[in-house]
């Protein structure tokens, strides 16, 4: 026995559905081939749906006064194998690729689908007011720059001859051709990577504040420590404790949300060959100086040999850099693109301090603590308070 569907027939040009108004038979009835079994109505005429073959009506899924689209299955007629063969319907049904349609052959009314609301899909992307001006880059420019791995920063020195001074493709190609006339050496991968990081970081408004910090306590503590503790590590541990007290200052601003750091992981800059590596001490707020020292020295060595394991870099919320080792007293380092803060330590110098009690200048060893920060996240006041806290913590190195 084979079940053959009763299908809503073609009803006329531009007519998509009809309403069932009468059932001329019921389930279980015997019907002849082409016998009229269901009466349907369109806005043009009343028509009959006929049985696809001789057999027994099984399953009338259609309902009275409901509308069904052309092609919808209204029920089934069960026919004998011979009848199926006579009708040429004994071939297995071929699964045709389902083309998603708004009405369906599944008995749903066309109405529901048509009434379904269409969600607007504008993704809120900003639309340029006008694609023109000095910074306009044509599709060709963008494609060429992409091909060569260049960014707008690379073209800073290039004056454009196009409208409003924009760089045309001719200006660009001429510029490149002229470059060839100079001595060219390959930049190392490290160099290119750092260049990219700095370029990305610079897209934020960065500012720097500095605070002179007395070093005697730290220097004394260092003299008797075993193993030797680098000055940067003192600063790192002080920063870690200060951030543990208030982590918002190391948070990142994404849109209108401040993303708080998940853990106080702090990196420190190590010069290596052609660039800078930043190994990371994890959870620096939970481990005292004595515990961190061994790991710190280990990481410095690995960094110098360019053998840092993957899990020893990345994911830090701030960096400490001891530019004092170069003899520099102040600097404005640029935080990594994913960080808000970089704490700097300048060279220690003996400087005269006015001692009010002794009414004379006394020599004091101090160094500048600098904080370079993403000014979107914190202002000078907060930066200053953070530095002050670090300086205070550094006066009691035994508590670090």
């Amino acid at each position, binding site marked *: 026995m084979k079940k053959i569907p009763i299908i809503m*027939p073609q009803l006329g040009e531009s007519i998509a559905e009809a309403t069932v108004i009468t059932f001329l038979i019921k389930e279980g009835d015997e019907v002849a081939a082409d016998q009229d079994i269901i009466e349907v109505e369109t806005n043009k005429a009343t028509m009959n749906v006929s049985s*696809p073959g001789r057999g027994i009506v099984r399953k009338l899924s259609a309902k009275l006064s409901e509308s069904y689209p052309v*092609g919808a299955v209204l029920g089934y007629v069960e026919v004998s194998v011979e009848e199926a063969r006579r*009708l040429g319907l004994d*071939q297995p049904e071929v699964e045709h690729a389902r083309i998603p349609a708004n009405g369906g052959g599944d008995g749903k009314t066309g109405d529901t689908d048509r009434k379904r609301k269409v969600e607007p899909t504008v993704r809120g992307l900003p639309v340029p007011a006008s694609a023109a001006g000095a910074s306009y880059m044509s599709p060709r420019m963008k494609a060429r720059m992409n091909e060569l791995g260049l960014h707008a920063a690379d073209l800073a020195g290039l004056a454009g001859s196009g409208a409003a001074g924009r760089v045309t493709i001719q200006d660009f190609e001429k510029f490149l051709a002229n470059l060839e006339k100079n001595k060219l050496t390959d930049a190392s991968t490290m160099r290119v990577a750092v260049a990219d990081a700095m370029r990305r970081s610079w897209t934020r408004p960065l500012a720097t504040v500095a605070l002179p910090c007395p070093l005697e306590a730290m220097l004394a503590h260092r003299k008797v420590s075993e193993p030797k503790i680098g000055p940067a590590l003192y600063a790192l541990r002080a920063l870690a404790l200060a951030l543990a007290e208030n982590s918002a200052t190391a948070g990142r601003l994404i849109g209108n949300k401040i993303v708080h750091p998940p853990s106080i992981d702090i990196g420190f800059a190590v010069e290596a060959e052609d660039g800078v590596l930043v190994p990371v001490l994890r959870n620096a707020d939970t481990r005292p100086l004595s515990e961190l020292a061994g790991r710190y020295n280990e990481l410095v060595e690995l960094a110098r040999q360019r053998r840092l394991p993957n899990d020893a870099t990345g994911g830090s919320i701030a960096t400490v850099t001891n530019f004092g080792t170069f003899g520099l007293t102040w600097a404005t380092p640029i935080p990594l693109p994913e960080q808000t803060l970089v704490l700097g330590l300048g060279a220690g110098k003996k400087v005269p301090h006015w001692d009010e009690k002794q009414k004379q200048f006394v020599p004091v060893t101090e160094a500048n603590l600098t904080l370079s920060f993403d000014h979107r996240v914190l202002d000078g006041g907060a930066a200053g308070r953070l530095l002050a806290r670090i300086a205070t913590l550094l006066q009691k190195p035994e508590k670090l």
Partner: protein
Amino acid sequence: MLQTLESREKADIVSSFREQYLKAFRYMLLSRVLDEKMASLYRGGKIHGGVFLGRGQEALSVSVGLALRKGDIFSPLIRDGAGRLAFGEPVLDAVRTYLGSVIGPMRGRDGNIHRGRPREGLFAMISHLGAMISVVNGALLVRRFKKIEGVVGAACIGEGGTSTGSFHEALNQAAVERLPLVLVVANNQYAYSTPNSRQFACRDLADKAIGYGVNVHKVDGTDLEKCLHTLSDAVAQAREGGGPQMVVAQLLRLCGHGEHDDAHYITTQSKQSLFGRDCLKVAEDHLLRRAWADVAIIRKYREEIALEVEQAVALVQREPGPDPYKENWCALASRHLSERFETPDSADSP
């Protein structure tokens, strides 16, 4: 009784006319059964698009097909199922085109009555009424260029089609060129729902022929005998150089414009008038009255035809439709001049 030469000739004429009549009747019956099968397949949801029947027009149409011979040109229109069969179109062509079989003459690219075999003289109509007549004219011109004599081209049209500009231009063109065109106008009283009173204002459609300088033949479209004689006559005159011949037949469309149309606008008056008779019934009565066939023979015809049609449908139902991914999607015979517009992905993706 001794048959004189005269009476034998007459008997011969009658018996050959009897054969022709029987042959015509059988084609009419085949056309009617095929039509009904298509209608039932349509109601059963098996046919995509429209179904258009020739119910009520079989006598006229079959007469056109039978009057033509191999080598002639025939451009049938919507209701000329009988004429097509008489001209030699296989039953399978109709079934395949309606069911969208890729093996049919139109390969799924066009459907229902938009079918033909142009190289064999059977033109495939386009939907714009009147457009096919000048195409027949052009073909006849070429036969003339090639010095092929005795060719006739027949084009069928309804009274509605006579209102179109293309009908006018083509008939005029045929007359100016004095082509052997036989233009058969079937006035079935309704163009879709439009009655004659809204279609033309002249007293009689046949009067238009005078305006074109063309010979006209009027006939009762419900009477097979009259149709056979009239068409035979008109075709002969065209073939012998009498210029274009227009035939105007009166009959009634006995079905909807298409099977989606219930034709409620056809008046009872029309249905009950003389030209509202069913030509198939008229022909059957004629056969029986003249004793050219008996009830048994007619029943046998019906059975044979029913089987032939059923088998054709069963066969075609097993045939594949066109595969959109195997189509070359090129409308030009000059493949090298076609352009590719889709990206390679879109052509292959389901």
